[in-house]
């Protein structure tokens, strides 16, 4: 059934990472991206991987979830690794056939970049695994609110995300209904070539769009009934508070990042 899909990939659990303030988790994710790209030597990369393993252990997530997050990008990792192996020269020549030449430098670069990408994906999926979409939207709105000075419509953006999240299941259910209705009248979505199948989607999309606009109109009325007047003067029921664990996790992450920079200075780079 189409309705069985979950939005985002939130996996509820009572772990430390789940309890962290979503704003802090966003900041930590940005820090993590820096931590992945700073190391220029194996020891630094090893430290970053160790930090990631610690985070995974603190997240209380099952291992299969972690693996699931990298599966979709495996082809990309493979592709970049192969390019790196053949394009990067330097070091000893290991293998040569026709125009293909493999150097030790290529192998090292491929491994280094591959590990970097895997770490990056796992680290950022920890954010979406441990934070519900609503909490994430909320955190984004609050973190971006200083940009209001630049006339960025932060509240409107967040409201749009909230409503989109709310209506995804509703519209999926609707699609299901329309498909059943069209099938009952003999529509065929499964056979034929690509073009034929794309054309078969038109009788689904048109009613879906019409109904989405009708829903939007009604929702606007309902929001007006509840005194909605934009972000001005609005308060929030759920207040976010930075706790000691949030400051502590920030301190640890900054310390690791600082250590990585120091290691870069002291140890010769491999790349």
């Amino acid at each position, binding site marked *: 059934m189409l309705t069985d899909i979950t939005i985002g990939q939130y996996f509820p659990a009572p772990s430390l990472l789940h309890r962290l303030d979503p704003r802090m988790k966003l900041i930590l994710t940005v820090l993590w991206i820096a931590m992945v790209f700073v190391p220029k030597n194996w020891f630094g990369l090893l430290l970053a991987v160790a930090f990631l393993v610690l985070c995974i252990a603190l997240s209380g997530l099952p291992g299969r979830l972690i693996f699931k997050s990298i599966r979709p990008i495996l082809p990309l990792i493979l592709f970049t690794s192969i390019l790196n192996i053949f394009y990067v020269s330097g070091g000893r020549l290991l293998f040569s056939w026709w125009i293909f030449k493999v150097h030790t430098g290529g192998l090292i670069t491929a491994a280094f970049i591959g590990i970097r990408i895997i770490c990056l994906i796992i680290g950022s999926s920890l954010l979406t695994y441990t934070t519900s979409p609503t909490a994430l939207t909320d955190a984004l709105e609050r973190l971006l609110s200083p940009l209001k000075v630049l006339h960025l419509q932060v509240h409107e953006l967040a409201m749009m995300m*909230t409503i989109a999240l709310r209506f995804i299941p509703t519209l999926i259910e609707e699609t299901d209904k329309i498909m059943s209705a069209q099938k009952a009248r003999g529509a065929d979505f499964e056979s034929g070539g690509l073009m034929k199948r794309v054309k078969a989607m038109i009788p689904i999309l048109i009613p879906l769009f019409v109904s989405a606009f009708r829903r939007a109109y009604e929702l606007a009325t*309902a929001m007006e009934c509840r005194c909605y007047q934009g972000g001005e003067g609005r308060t929030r029921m759920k207040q976010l508070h930075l706790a000691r664990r949030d400051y502590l996790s920030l301190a640890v992450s900054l310390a690791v990042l600082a250590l990585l920079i120091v290691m870069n200075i002291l140890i010769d780079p491999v790349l």
Partner: protein
Amino acid sequence: MEIINAQALSFSYENPDEAPHIVLEGVDLSIEKGSFVALLGANGSGKSTLAKQCNAILLPTGGKLLVDGMDTADPDRLFDVRRTVGLVLQNPDNQLVSSIVEEDVAFGPENLGLPPQEIRRRVEDSLRAVGMYGYKDSAPHKLSGGQKQRVAIAGILAMQPDCLVLDEPTAMLDPQGRREVLQTVHALNRDRGMTVVIITHYMEEAAGADRVLVMDGGKICMDGTPREIFSQVDKLRECRLDVPQPTELCYRLRQKGVNLPADILTAEEFVAAFEAVLKEGADR
């Protein structure tokens, strides 16, 4: 004290090329605080338009509408009007804003700019009032139609209105959901003295009200207690409406010369009255 007071209220959609499309025509109406009013009318009779006038979603094009003494056409009082009269719409799916029940209920009070503790208090109170407190962390799409509509009602209640206007709140629900919503609305009227105006197509729902209004062609054509209204079967038919089934049965039996009262509303009343008639026949 009256909470809603319409004086020669008219509303029409202006059309530059054609004659204006008149939806409401000279409606005079006053609704007392604490009453439970059912508003009936065939499709296109103007009842939804009247509901939207009550909280200034639409504004009169003629006459005026006072909500608790405030003119709905006064832009300075717009949000006071909407805080006083809450409007619940037909489709619960299209009224819920957030993907978490309690956050959705909080949407109204958040818009009013209340302090967080006060919002929390109101959200919990409203969810308890509609019997949905146990679902506060659920996602709306996992709830049944009746439950979603109760959440929508809680969302309006959290703004603490004096009057609740419901525009066919049960039209899209199954019988179980209809019962849930009606019981909730009746409880609010009984326990909290909330004024309720409910628009419905189900005559059985109207039979439980204090007062029934019937609209036809943009005018209020009948106004009275359920008994007064439903005993006038012919007049209701002229307004393209039905009567509750027990009333209908009574009406047909009376036409055949059976001596039954004209103002029967429920199956229980009918059984009692019919028993009396049978006994009378046996005595004779």
